[in-house]
């Protein structure tokens, strides 16, 4: 083009204009043809109700407040979900797709559908489901990469496996403040994780306090329903993390370690929580100083009720002290929290075994109510040939002896039988006691192991050899009675009609053997009811196999004034459930004592 060229007459020549005759116009066609939207077009919402967990994050981010969470009564939510579903008002929606980018499950997307034509205003407000889906790969979808959320957690720093397996010092290094805050910021505050926690801790609240570096506030939230926050922040089974919204597609927030971090930052709980000065003029006896009793006693004392714990051992903490190895839960943490519970005025009578040193009935007479929290302490044995005698341990006894500082002698080649967390503890303790080779035998597949993934990984990292789908059949001893070999067979997973999970069936025709000198059986623990007089065993209601006591919502057994909690009540058998039970029982006891008044 030249500047200012001025052509008189028709600028667009006739022949120039001709070419437009055949050109296909880029405008709306008559008769109407729908324009094919681009693949990424942001149209009407589609929501997969199966995946959606009703967390409400989509409603929270919507800049136009186009989303309202409505309850769908016909839905029964699974763990970590609600029966709310987003309802979109297209009078407000601006089709930005941020709701999609923030949806932690990826259930929500904008399809390429864009037509809603109606004269009824109510048709523009509905609860999206899969009806208008334009198919996978179309519309505005979000994957882990493009999501606004970060599905990767900050990993907890650990000591080098080669080093840490030499001693019983704590394997975790703990978060730095920077790491903790960086992780805490991930919490979206949707509070679905609370459903997973047996005691329903105020998780979003205390994480938010951590994000604001206000650790005292954080601990204040924790103590509402957990008097052992740092212990739980170290060894809890973190059911909350399984319910965390991030868990649906990625790694949950490190709820457990964040709790431990914040609690560890507060040296003196008394400044934050205080000591209760209430007086109620009532006395309660608690049997066993495990987490269940400790938690129950703590909350009783908060209301001024006198709590006296009878403990058979010389130490408090129950399985926290006697079961869990010290490299997982250092004494300093445990004693800090137990001391604080004692400071509340809880009395612990050590070395008194109920049923031996004092009878159950005496307790009933002396106190206004009794709480039983005796836990599972008797280790089971397999009952295969050769399992009586030297060189065979059950895990519960072995761990207890190690934790009590008794000298325990094991050999160099150790076989641990079982697949749970206790088995993992046994393998790693064996390594620390000097074993050179540790084999873990489990009769099902790796994926079937009830032990948590992290425990499995840690054990593997320390050099434990996993032999899954194996079943020991005989322990072979030499003429001095020393173990030389363990014979075993492999198993096959057989899926039976109607069964929940496949069953391991041993292939008996091919017997193999390991060279072994020590066997540790970690195939489960049992309760010990010997402290109960026989007539009481009939009065209190048990489940069919006498494994658990049956209690009501207030944790009261069938006998008035007798409460129970912890491993002997709930089949989940972990510390936090015991704590939850203890707290619930404390509330129940308070209620019961007031009724009697």
């Amino acid at each position: 083009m030249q500047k200012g060229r001025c052509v008189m007459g028709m600028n667009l020549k006739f022949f120039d204009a001709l070419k437009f005759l055949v050109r296909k116009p880029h405008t709306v066609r008559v008769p109407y043809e729908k324009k094919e939207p681009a693949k990424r077009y942001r149209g009407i919402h589609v929501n997969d109700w199966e995946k959606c967990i009703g967390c409400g994050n989509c409603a929270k981010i919507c800049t136009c407040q186009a989303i309202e969470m409505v309850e769908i009564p016909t839905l029964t939510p699974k763990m970590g979900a609600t029966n709310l579903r987003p309802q979109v008002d297209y009078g407000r929606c601006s089709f930005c797709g941020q709701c999609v980018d923030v949806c932690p499950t990826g259930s929500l997307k904008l399809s390429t559908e864009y037509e809603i034509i109606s004269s009824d205003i109510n048709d523009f407000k509905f609860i999206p489901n899969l009806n208008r889906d334009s198919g996978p790969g179309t519309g505005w979808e979000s994957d882990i990469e493009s999501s606004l959320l970060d599905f990767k957690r900050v990993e907890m720093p650990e000591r080098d496996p080669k080093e840490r397996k030499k001693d019983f010092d704590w394997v975790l290094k703990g978060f730095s403040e920077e790491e903790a805050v960086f992780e805490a910021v991930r919490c979206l505050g949707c509070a679905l994780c609370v459903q997973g926690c047996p005691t329903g801790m105020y998780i979003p609240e205390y994480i938010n306090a951590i994000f604001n570096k206000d650790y005292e506030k954080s601990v204040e939230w924790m103590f509402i329903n957990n008097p052992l926050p740092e212990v739980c922040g170290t060894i809890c089974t973190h059911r909350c993390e399984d319910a965390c919204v991030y868990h649906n597609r990625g790694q949950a927030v490190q709820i457990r370690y964040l709790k431990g971090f914040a609690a560890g930052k507060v040296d003196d709980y008394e400044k934050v929580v205080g000591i209760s000065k209430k007086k109620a003029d009532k006395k309660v006896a608690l049997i066993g100083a495990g987490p269940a009793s400790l938690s129950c006693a703590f909350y009783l004392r908060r209301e001024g009720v006198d709590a006296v714990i009878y403990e058979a051992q010389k130490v408090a903490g129950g399985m926290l002290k006697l079961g869990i190895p010290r490299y997982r839960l250092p004494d300093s943490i445990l004693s800090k929290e137990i001391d604080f519970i004692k400071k509340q005025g809880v009395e612990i009578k050590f070395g008194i075994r109920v049923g031996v040193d004092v009878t159950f009935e005496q307790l009933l007479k002396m106190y206004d109510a009794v709480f039983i929290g005796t836990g599972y302490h008797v280790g089971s044995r397999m009952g295969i040939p050769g399992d009586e005698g030297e060189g065979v341990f059950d895990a519960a006894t072995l761990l207890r002896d190690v934790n009590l500082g008794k000298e325990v002698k094991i050999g160099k080649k150790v076989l641990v039988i079982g697949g749970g967390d206790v088995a993992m503890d046994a393998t790693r303790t064996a390594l620390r006691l000097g074993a050179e080779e540790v084999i873990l035998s489990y009769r099902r597949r790796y994926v079937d192991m009830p032990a948590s993934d992290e425990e499995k990984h840690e054990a593997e990292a320390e050099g434990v050899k996993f032999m899954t789908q194996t079943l020991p059949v005989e322990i072979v001893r030499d003429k001095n009675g020393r173990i030389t070999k363990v014979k075993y067979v492999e198993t096959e997973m057989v899926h039976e009609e109607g069964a929940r999970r496949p069953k391991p069936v041993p292939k008996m025709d091919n017997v193999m053997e390991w060279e072994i000198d020590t066997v540790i059986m970690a195939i489960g623990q049992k309760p010990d009811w010997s402290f109960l007089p026989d007539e009481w065993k009939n009065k209190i209601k048990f489940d069919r196999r006498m494994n658990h006591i049956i209690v009501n919502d207030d944790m009261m057994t069938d006998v008035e004034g007798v409460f129970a909690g912890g491993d002997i009540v709930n089949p989940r058998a972990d510390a936090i459930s015991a704590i939850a039970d203890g707290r619930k029982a404390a509330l129940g006891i308070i209620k019961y004592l007031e009724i009697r008044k």
Partner: protein
Amino acid sequence: MGKIREFDFEYFIGPAHPGVTGNMSYHIWAEGDTILKIEPNLGYLHRGFEKLVEQRHWIKNFPLILRICVPEPDVNEVLLAMAVEELNEIDVPERAQYIRIIVLELARLAAYLFYFGGVAGAIGLYTIPQWTIGDRDYILDLFEELTGGRVYHIYQTIGGVRRDTPEGFEERVLKVLDYLEERLKDYDKLFFEHPLFLKRTKGIGIVDKDTALRFSVTGPNLRAAGVNYDVRKQEPYLIYDRFDFDVPDIYRDGDVYSRAMQRRLEFAESIRIIRQAIDKMPGGAVNIKIRNPFEYRVRAGSTYVKLESSKGEYGFYVVSDGGVLPYRLHVRGPSFSHGLQLVRHIAEGTNIADISMILFSLDVCPPDAER
């Protein structure tokens, strides 16, 4: 300003269509055909964005803030992102920067096409708007493919853009660019060299250099008055310093003709920039993780960020108090300069038949003045 007498005419043009993109009215007093006085009357498009922004988390402002301007919404998004990135000292991934350049320049093309149609329409050449708005649709198609939205793209985010380019996008951009270049020749024939256009626009609505500087005029309007000022060159934001492009400096008369021709030349420069961007675009990530949109904080402080929009210097003055919400955001729309005080000044003595054309040639955009 001429004295207004009782028998002079009083007109209102607008708010429905005062010859500008958006609703705004001008109150005119005229003696015969000659304008004595003009007074802009704002408020039809005031939506209170600056207030709304203060109540939304940083990230939630992206879908909101771009709605200030219809013809070229992307500048708002990019500015917000730039402000946050500056305050928080974020390094934006390379690829995202290149994509941003492509988006901004495509938006400029689309806005100029709108402009050509508008000026031509104001003169009475009605074929041109049909063509340019039709051709703008090809660009909107590209946007739809890239961002999922045609007009409002909501594509920027803190630390980059929301999605990577779809497959084959670059080729399709180049195809559209080829087409537009081809089309420019048609525009030249039908419009820019059209005798009617020359006759109607030369020497009309003059904003000379001194006036332009006095009224803080920016952008192509200023350049058409002979001041070579372009934010992309003066203060290269994003990565504009890596591109080879010229700021055309041929038309310096400051009349309607120069303003239109200035944009016509810049149109070709933008195409050049996009071609280079596509050519040089590296691979890699397109955004960063902000971890939690509801807890995202911006360090306390304030900044003035600006960029070159199709209408002139567009700036955000952003204040953060370190919280999850912006403390204050002031939008400096270019039309605030050339749509109010300047129009008051230059309108006196112009012919009433020219006023629409003059306003459109200045590219007065009430939405960015009123917010």
